[in-house]
């Protein structure tokens, strides 16, 4: 599979999912079970992506500057800092730790 094929297939699939929603009469998908499970799927996926992005390199688990940066981000989110500040602070923390040589 080439990179272009992956990108186009994934893009079309995501776009199609949006359009499908406009063909469905309202209420059909609004059963409590469907809505609840869809919302929880988003939570599960995002949570898993955080772990993958923070502690893995390929198939290896590693601890490096990303974990302390994530802790900084969590602290800022807890005090309701603006989203963009959270992102910038996380990046800056990791960059600083690497510059100082305190973390890989």
């Amino acid at each position, binding site marked *: 599979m080439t*990179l272009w*094929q*992956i*990108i*186009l297939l*994934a*893009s079309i*699939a*995501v*776009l199609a*999912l*949006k*359009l*499908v*929603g406009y063909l469905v009469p*309202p209420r*059909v*998908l*609004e059963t*409590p*079970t*469907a*809505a*609840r*499970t*869809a*919302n*929880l*799927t*988003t*939570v599960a*996926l*995002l*949570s*898993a*992506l*955080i*772990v*993958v*992005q923070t502690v893995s390199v*390929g*198939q*290896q*688990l590693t601890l490096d*500057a*990303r974990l302390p*940066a994530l802790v900084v*981000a969590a602290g800022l*989110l807890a005090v309701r800092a*603006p*989203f*963009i500040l959270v*992102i*910038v602070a*996380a*990046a800056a*923390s*990791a*960059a600083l730790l*690497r510059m100082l040589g305190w973390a890989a």
Partner: protein
Amino acid sequence: MSDVASRRDARRASLAVGLAVSAYGVSFGALAVTAGLDVWQTCVLSLVMFSGGSQFAVIGVLASGGTAAGPAAIAGATLLGLRNTLYAVRVSPIVGPGWVKRLAAGHLTIDESTAVATAQPTLEGQRWGFWMTGLVIYVGWNLTTLAGALLGDLLGDVSRFGLDAAAAAAFLGLVWPRLTALQPVVVAVAAAVVAAVAIPVLPPGLPVLVAALVALVVGLPDLFGRRPGTEPLRAHDAALDEHGPPAPDAGEAHR
């Protein structure tokens, strides 16, 4: 509320959310280039897929697994994009009839446009909120994606600047406003554990999909729910609070 006032409120919320979310396209662009995409491929993701969570999932999986992880990247993006279908069902009456309008609205159906629209008290405000948030983010997100991709191309290895950590922080910002009850917290923790256990034993991309099963295990029988069957579908509210994190949908976010 008068139409004038509801339009004004909707415009204000749209701009605040739209500009904040757009700024964050820079990190998507830079990360995509680091993951091995060229500038065109990066821009196609923002132009066509246009759903932050799914876009980050694609480049996250490709960054760790390369093109061999292509099917997992597509599956991850698609699963994350499922919530847009529910949003579309929800905003469909706000958009109204006319297939050209509905096609355009479909493209703009993301966490933020849904969240801003559904938070407005009048139909007029809801229409303004949906279209303005969607259009501001569409234009802004694509411009910043291009800027980030060009910048990332120039800078080379962006881990020096901590951009790999920015991706994790972005996902955290997306999930944070959803952790308002026991049930989503249980799912988040369980999914994180499943992913961590699966990373060394499964090929890149699959741990995320296996972790998604946690949502089905908890969601279908409504384990840890407060009052079974009373949770309505709604875009989370954080994007509406100008002081809170406007989670890019990410789609969800709230990209």
